[in-house]
């Protein structure tokens, strides 16, 4: 999980070739980065602040934006803890035990990565929508999932499913289970062993997974868009709201909302860097 660089600190001329080639490659990479990352980043904030700081905060604080912020936070607040518990349990199960169906479980965990988010959203519509399998049953009890908040939460949980498990699993596998066996031999119960020994060992992996999970939960567009129905002030998350404002040619509003997501991304990156740094220094 830690992208460690194995390259030597001193560039070895014999391997890296002549200086012009090196500068050409570095220049190319920087130009690419600038064009695809830096310019868009600057553009987001430029457009957002186009009409001044006052207009910026008005756009963010207007009721519909505020409701989108709340819904995004709610979806993440449910999806992240759920996937944290699931991810830990799944990683522990796969790392520690050999059982029939282990490979199937491993494959299923990756499913949300390989399925297009739009398809993921459609699955829920087919399941819970009015024409879906469970539609009549839900209608009978007046339960609304699709085009309502529960659908958005479900879709978010689905697309963020693999993050924690995928980050924790390799850490658990790499560390073996000598310490767990020592704890058991000292009389600790399985649960105590998990809390006092296993969890502290994998905590940076867990944090890293939670971070990625949260970023995706707040930023998800495709799956949420399908199940949302775009009811303003009710079922719009931040990414959906940004799109709606954009489609209405409310550029500064759209980019103000987008800037919130951009800030989230930057904070995530910074925390991720910090977690990687802490995980490497014992």
């Amino acid at each position: 999980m830690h992208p460690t660089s194995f390259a030597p600190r001193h560039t070895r001329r014999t391997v890296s070739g002549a200086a012009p080639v090196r500068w050409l490659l570095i220049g190319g990479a920087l130009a690419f980065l600038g064009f695809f990352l830096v310019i868009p980043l600057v553009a987001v904030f430029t457009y957002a602040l186009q009409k001044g700081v006052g207009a910026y905060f008005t756009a963010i604080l207007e009721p519909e934006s505020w409701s989108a912020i709340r819904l995004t936070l709610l979806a993440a607040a449910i999806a992240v803890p759920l996937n944290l518990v699931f991810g830990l349990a799944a990683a522990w199960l796969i790392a520690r035990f050999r059982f029939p169906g282990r490979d199937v479980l491993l494959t299923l965990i990756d499913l949300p990565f390989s399925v297009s988010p739009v398809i993921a959203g459609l699955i829920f519509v087919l399941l819970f929508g009015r024409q879906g399998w469970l539609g009549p049953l839900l209608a009978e009890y007046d339960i609304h999932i699709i085009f309502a908040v529960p659908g958005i939460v479900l879709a978010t949980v689905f697309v963020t499913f693999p993050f924690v498990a995928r980050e924790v699993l390799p850490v658990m596998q790499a560390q073996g289970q000598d310490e767990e066996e020592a704890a058991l031999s000292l009389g600790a119960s399985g649960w105590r062993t998990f809390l006092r020994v296993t969890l502290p060992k994998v905590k940076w992996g867990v944090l890293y997974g939670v971070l990625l999970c949260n970023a995706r939960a707040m930023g998800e567009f495709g799956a949420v868009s399908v199940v949302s129905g775009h009811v303003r002030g009710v079922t719009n998350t931040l990414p959906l709201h940004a799109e709606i404002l954009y489609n209405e040619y409310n550029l500064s509003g759209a980019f103000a909302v987008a800037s919130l997501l951009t800030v989230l991304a930057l904070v995530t990156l910074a925390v991720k860097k910090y977690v990687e740094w802490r995980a490497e220094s014992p």
Partner: protein
Amino acid sequence: MSVIVEQLTKRFTAGGTPAVSDVSFHAPSAAITTLLGPSGAGKSTLLRLIAGLELPDSGSVRIEGVDCTHLPVQKRGIGVVFQSYALFKHMTVRQNIAFGLETRQQPRSEVEARVDEMLRLVQLEELGKRYPGQLSGGQRQRVAFARALAIRPKLLLLDEPFGALDSRVRVELREWLQSLHEQTGVTTLLVTHDQEEALEISQHVVVLSDGRVAQAGPPEEIYDRPATPFVASFVGGTSVLRGHVRSGRAQVGTLVVEAPQSAREGEAVHAFVRPHDIKIVKTANGVAAGPTTSLVERLKSVGGYVKVLLKLPSGETVSVEVPRAEFENLGVVEGDHVHADVRMAKVFLGDFSI
């Protein structure tokens, strides 16, 4: 008898070769018993079965008269020291040692007192606040001992406890373990592949080969009277010589010894000779070759003794160890011809093959 293992069998794959096969032995109370064998002999698996970290397919384990075969590891009253130390890296030395005591929900003051006592026992009083990452290998291993002993186990299980340390520290810790055992008197089971370690620190040795007990007994008995060719070759750094039965006696080189009773005339035998059971005698004229002389192929000085590689008249090669002082009196150089006097050998019927 403190630990009694009966007919223990464990297979890791159904129908496969058992890692531990029908093993029975006993380990006397308050003594150090060693499970000795080459890698793959099943000794670690056997230790894990006794600890309760693996479950046997059949057989039983009794610790201090209590049948533990179906008890979970937490209830067996054992302390385990792993080769990898298995210290909790995120806890200080004190927290590591206190872990088992806190599990037993003892009052804080008792836990603290016991931790202090353990730190004194392993001579690490100053290092209680350190983390395992800040200790040397030998210190970590001592913390592992303190942690295992803190809970007053009925039985201490050591899985190659010195395996990851360099040879100087190994020798130091061996002596330390002996004095620790004298202080605590805890019944101890030690797994090792190092026969020197086994012979030095244990009162009882169980030699394992291919998941079975090859021989069990006091170290002197294992060394002097190996029961099988495997034990003879594994313990004591021996050379193998081939010979035949002639008129009821086994003839191996210059040595003629009683043959086993079932021996038939002319049957092949093989003999295991320890490096110090061959005496080198100079020939009358010093260096010349003859029909009964052996060639000094190589000399190697190893600390207190000299290793002499001899090519016998039969063409077989043996390794002989001569104490340094004796060697200097002998005055032999490479290429000399000498008489090799085999004074003791353990003879087994049949040809030798590994």
